[in-house]
């Protein structure tokens, strides 16, 4: 095994973490590290994101940061105008913030996706959902990591 060489002190996000939890709504990327905010803007755009109607399930503590199971569920009928078009995942303290974007076509029955992500260290996971009416929802989860996911 190789050792991770992640830059642990590259970003100071402790304050950001507290703000994220406290803010009911915010512009996508507000008060996040600049590269995280930029990655979110690139995928989601600048629309204001509301909390609620979206659940991000991840372990409080991940033993192995290389394979962290994550499920994102969006409250949506997936019919008519009540559709979720896409879910985007970001990690605040990985070497690069992007995890993935998932897009739903017409035959999708639930606005839900289960995946595995890798986390270099303990950090915040951010899930954004783009809805057909143009609204954006956001959920945040804090994940502690016992052994880092070796991205670097």
């Amino acid at each position: 095994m190789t050792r991770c060489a992640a830059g642990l002190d590259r970003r100071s996000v402790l304050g950001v973490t507290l703000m994220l939890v406290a803010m009911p709504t915010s512009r996508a990327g507000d008060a996040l590290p600049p590269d995280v905010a930029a990655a979110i803007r690139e995928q989601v755009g600048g629309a204001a994101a509301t909390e609620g109607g979206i659940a991000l399930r991840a372990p409080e503590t991940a033993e192995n940061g290389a394979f962290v199971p994550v499920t994102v569920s969006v409250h949506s009928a997936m019919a008519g105008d009540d559709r979720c078009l896409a879910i985007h995942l970001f990690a605040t303290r990985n070497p690069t913030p992007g995890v993935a974007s998932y897009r739903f076509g017409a035959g999708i029955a639930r606005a839900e996706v289960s995946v595995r992500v890798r986390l270099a260290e303990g950090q915040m996971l951010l899930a954004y959902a783009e809805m057909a009416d143009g609204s954006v929802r956001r959920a945040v989860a804090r994940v502690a990591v016992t052994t880092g996911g070796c991205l670097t």
Partner: protein
Amino acid sequence: MTTPRIRVPSSVKAGEPFEIRTLIDHPMETGLRHQTGQTVARRMITRFEAQADGALLFTADFRNGTSANPYVAFHARLAQTTTISFLWREEDGREYRAAQQVTVS
């Protein structure tokens, strides 16, 4: 090394949600990792597509935070018997495919 694995029911009821689970064995090297002083070359699957009889059903764009052996599960519903096909594409163009017919009763 890059073997797609799909778990798709062979038959479902019309309109009933069912789960599709997919995984492909792949290192998903970010190009950022070092091993014995050398950078491990980047090698990533960046695109996943599921199609239902040729119509896009679900897509994923994987970035560095997606784990090795990327796993994705989602829920579909069908009105009629359909072939679900899957495609994983590496950045350099290499592609891996799988498919299964789902009979609707």
